[in-house]
């Protein structure tokens, strides 16, 4: 529903306050939270144990971040940019292979494992919302460059502020990602498993470097706002497209 409403907002040029989309995502978030709690209680563990749960947790984290940022009225349009991504994540999560029947033992357990998984998935949420802000930036910048009336008609924030928001979300995501990776590095390693050659570890470090590079280029090398925004969107798209594949290849994460 939120995705459909977002299409309506796009077509209308973001002229009306986006409280409807905010409320839709708030209701969805509440239902999702209840469902996650029920699942957690039924398995007696934090529900981030397989790809299905990890995928839906990313969506949950993304909406949580949006609900906080969206308290500021002019940033509510982030929802219109995040909804299609959420919809895509939701559809992907429904693939049966991602949620295999449970074995007698949980795949992962322990507080450090939960911290590792939760921090990294929250970081993905922040990166996702950063990509949505970058999408808003590119849309608004395009409209301003090409003298579209909707650039002034829309209720979206100024592009300079959108760029700041996108970079802060990426920074927040990078901090969470760092904490998550650090927690992962402290986990006991199964015997006969290579750590530094594990595809998921290599991929995670690569993603960490990509986000770090984006911030460094912007901060110290005056990279243009447009390139930064494209970089944030491209990085998140790459993250989404390769997340599941590297998980399946990883012996650490998919024994």
């Amino acid at each position, binding site marked *: 529903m939120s995705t459909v409403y977002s299409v309506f907002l796009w077509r209308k040029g973001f*002229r009306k306050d986006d409280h409807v989309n905010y409320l839709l995502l708030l209701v969805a978030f509440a239902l999702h939270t209840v469902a996650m709690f029920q699942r957690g209680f039924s398995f007696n563990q934090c529900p981030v144990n397989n790809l299905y749960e990890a995928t839906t947790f990313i969506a949950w984290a993304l909406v949580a971040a949006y609900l906080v940022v969206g308290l500021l009225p002019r940033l509510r349009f982030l929802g219109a940019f995040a909804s299609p991504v959420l919809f895509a994540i939701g559809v992907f999560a429904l693939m049966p292979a991602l949620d295999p029947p449970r074995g007698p033992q949980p795949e992962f357990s322990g507080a450090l494992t939960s911290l590792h998984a939760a921090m990294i998935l929250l970081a993905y949420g922040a990166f996702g919302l950063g990509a949505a802000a970058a999408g808003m930036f590119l849309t*608004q910048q395009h409209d*301003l*460059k090409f*003298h579209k*009336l909707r*650039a*002034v*008609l829309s209720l*979206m924030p*100024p*592009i*300079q*502020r959108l760029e*700041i928001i996108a970079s802060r979300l990426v920074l927040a995501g990078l901090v969470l990602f760092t904490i998550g990776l650090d927690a992962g590095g402290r986990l006991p390693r199964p015997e006969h498993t290579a750590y530094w050659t594990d595809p998921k570890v290599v991929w995670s470090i690569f993603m960490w470097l990509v986000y770090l590079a984006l911030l460094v280029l912007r901060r110290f090398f*005056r990279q*243009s*706002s*447009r390139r930064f925004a494209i970089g944030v969107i491209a990085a998140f798209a790459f993250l989404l497209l390769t997340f599941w594949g590297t998980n399946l290849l990883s012996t650490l994460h998919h024994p």
Partner: protein
Amino acid sequence: MNIFVIGLSHHSAPVELRERFAFAEAKIPEALKSLRESGIAAEAVILSTCNRVEIYAATPLEPARAFAELKKYLARWGEILSSPNQNTTKSGLEGLSPHPNGLGDTLYTLAEPQSLHHLFKVACGMDSMVLGETEILGQLKQAYALAHHHGHTGARLNKAFQRAFHVAKHIRTETNIQRGSVSVASVAVELAEKIFSSLGDREVLVIGAGETSEKTARALLSRGARSIIVANRSHDRAVALAKEFGGRAVQFDDWAGEFQKIDIAISSTSAPHHILDRAKLELLMKARQQRPLLLIDIAVPRDIDPEVNFLENVYLYNIDDLQAIADDYLKQRKEEIARCEAIIAEKVKGLLETRSPMSLLIDFPPVPSLNKS
């Protein structure tokens, strides 16, 4: 007791006539007092702006008599106000009779429900010269507050005016009648607000001190721009303008040197060729570390090469671009008129319904824009 409106506005009367009837704010309490003491009205509010002079009166008199008395009263005041010892502008008054019959078609009179409809339209800026402008609401509030403060309003007008203010707020939030800017200067300000996080720490460079660039700079300053730098071929003119803005003047040949500091440039020189092209701006953008730059080119022929718009973080608007946005806004406002009319008709009906159950039977005819007397 019904509410009547009598007055003249930019729709019906030229400025020479409007200024003759304009009430100075200090005179309004006295005028209201005499209106009530004469027995014409039990309650009254006088709205006197540069575009309209209107009396809103609640009176038990029959409409025909009420209008006749109000016309006489207004004509009498017009005569008093335009007498030499009142220091009122006299230009263009020759030949205009203070007698009501001499006012011809310039006075309009409205009885309920049209009078309430008119009041609501005025409050919403729908009867203004610039459709949807909001200044009139402040002026109406001020006129009402003045009358209320001096005890010249009662239940009828209090309710009608409060409802009018409520309707104006409702229309502002529910429709696009007041959205956007309809002048080149305000469109430029709006664009700046879409680019920069805040105008508070922005520096503006004015190259060529034309009338529109002056207005645009003034509008930016009023919205919080930090300072204005003026470069003009006549340095004296630049200094005078900079002084007016509280900014500083630079020699015309040195304007490019200011690009490192500024965020917005308004150009309106009479140069026959581009004074700023892509190659030149590319170098300047490097010097200003690619910070966003808004360029407003209101010169004809244009001062800035359109190619510069392809540069990263440069936003160029010429006079046609700004005018097109202003026109689109106006068009959009006009498209909202039907919606606003429907809301107003509903609100007028609602107001009348609260007065008497019999009024539920009123079937409103289409409301004409103005009833000319």
